[in-house]
């Protein structure tokens, strides 16, 4: 009995210590100090405004850490999207200081202007709430560009043999690491002015698949990317290539498609004429 009482008392005391400690740290964070970041965050949906928060500066702090701090400590109603925190999933892309980037792989120190950060949702996509955008349009366009694989082999067939050094495999390799984060799509000025344009990510995927010798829907794909909304709408400004966090070159993929599609329309291709 005595033991239990002691335990309960001890629990209370330790809880109080933890509470006090937490409260003190919290108070310290709240106070304006030289190391505080002034972070403007977009709040609302399509219509909304920037709200400023003060966030303590830490060494090696990423922009995602800043957003997480705001949600956990300052305003739990803030909505944003993330999953892996290590640059694998591509879900935490946002517009930070006017440029689309992965927030998990961007250190505050790399991009902070004075002591200010401005965090907004990705451009060119409808905003659901705060920093979360509706990505449906983006992924629908992948489908629109026939950006998915279809083969004609079954599990009973032998493996397809693709020579690693073959030109097709090399070309596919160059663009295959895309994880669909939407940074290129959000940075593309053609998407901005021409909302039906398929965009760099979908066209990059289409290009890697035109170089997949196992795929059987090549003519459909060429037709899908040949129209007014397809590869020829690209202005070759190169924002997608400049901003791609995976250092891919959608601009090069799109110019590959431009040549392939134009040749197929005029002279025909190995899969037939457009």
């Amino acid at each position: 009995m005595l033991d239990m009482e002691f335990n309960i008392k001890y629990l209370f005391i330790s809880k109080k210590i933890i509470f006090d400690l937490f409260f003190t740290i919290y108070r310290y964070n709240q106070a304006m100090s030289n190391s505080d970041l002034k972070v403007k965050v977009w709040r609302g949906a399509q219509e909304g405004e920037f709200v400023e928060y003060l966030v303590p500066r830490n060494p090696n702090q990423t922009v995602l850490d800043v957003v997480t701090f705001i949600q956990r400590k300052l305003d739990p109603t803030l909505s944003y999207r993330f999953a892996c925190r290590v640059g694998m999933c591509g879900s935490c892309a946002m517009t930070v200081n006017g440029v689309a980037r992965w927030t998990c792989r961007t250190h505050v120190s790399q991009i902070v202007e004075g002591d200010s950060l401005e965090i907004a949702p990705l451009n060119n996509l409808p905003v659901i709430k705060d920093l979360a955008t509706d990505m449906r349009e983006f992924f629908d366009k992948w489908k629109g560009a026939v950006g998915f694989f279809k083969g004609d082999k079954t599990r009973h067939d032998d493996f397809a043999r693709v020579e690693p050094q073959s030109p097709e495999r090399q070309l596919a390799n160059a663009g295959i690491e895309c994880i669909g984060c939407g940074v290129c799509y959000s940075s593309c000025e053609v998407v901005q002015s021409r909302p039906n344009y398929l965009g760099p990510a979908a066209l990059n995927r289409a290009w890697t698949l035109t170089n997949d010798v196992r795929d059987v829907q090549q003519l459909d794909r060429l037709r899908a990317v040949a129209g007014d909304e397809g590869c020829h709408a690209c202005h070759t400004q190169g924002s997608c290539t400049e901003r791609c966090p995976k250092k891919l070159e959608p601009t090069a993929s799109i110019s590959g498609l431009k040549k392939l599609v134009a040749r197929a329309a005029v002279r025909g291709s190995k899969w037939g004429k457009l």
Partner: protein
Amino acid sequence: MQAKLWYAQRISAMVLGLCVSIHLVIIFYAIRGGLTAEEILGRTQGNIAFAVFYEIFVLACFVHAPIGLANILEETFSKGFISKALSSLLAVLILILGTTAVIGVYTGGTL
């Protein structure tokens, strides 16, 4: 159609690149000792090579410029009658005015 137009514009751009370079070299060569109408006509009048070269230049412009103008109009405004009409008008003007000029310098203004 978009793909064919792109192809036509690309090929005509290659021709134009060559034509513009030759044209500029000729200009630099020709203005060394001042420039007079007689001098130009003296060189071009009756010279079939000059006439063929400049007519190719005109034809490349005739293909290249209207496609570009149509693209700009379609992207800035919308696809439709106006962009087609204006780019067709530009095509006809380039062809007629350009060919007239080529005939002019070949014949020296007297047909």
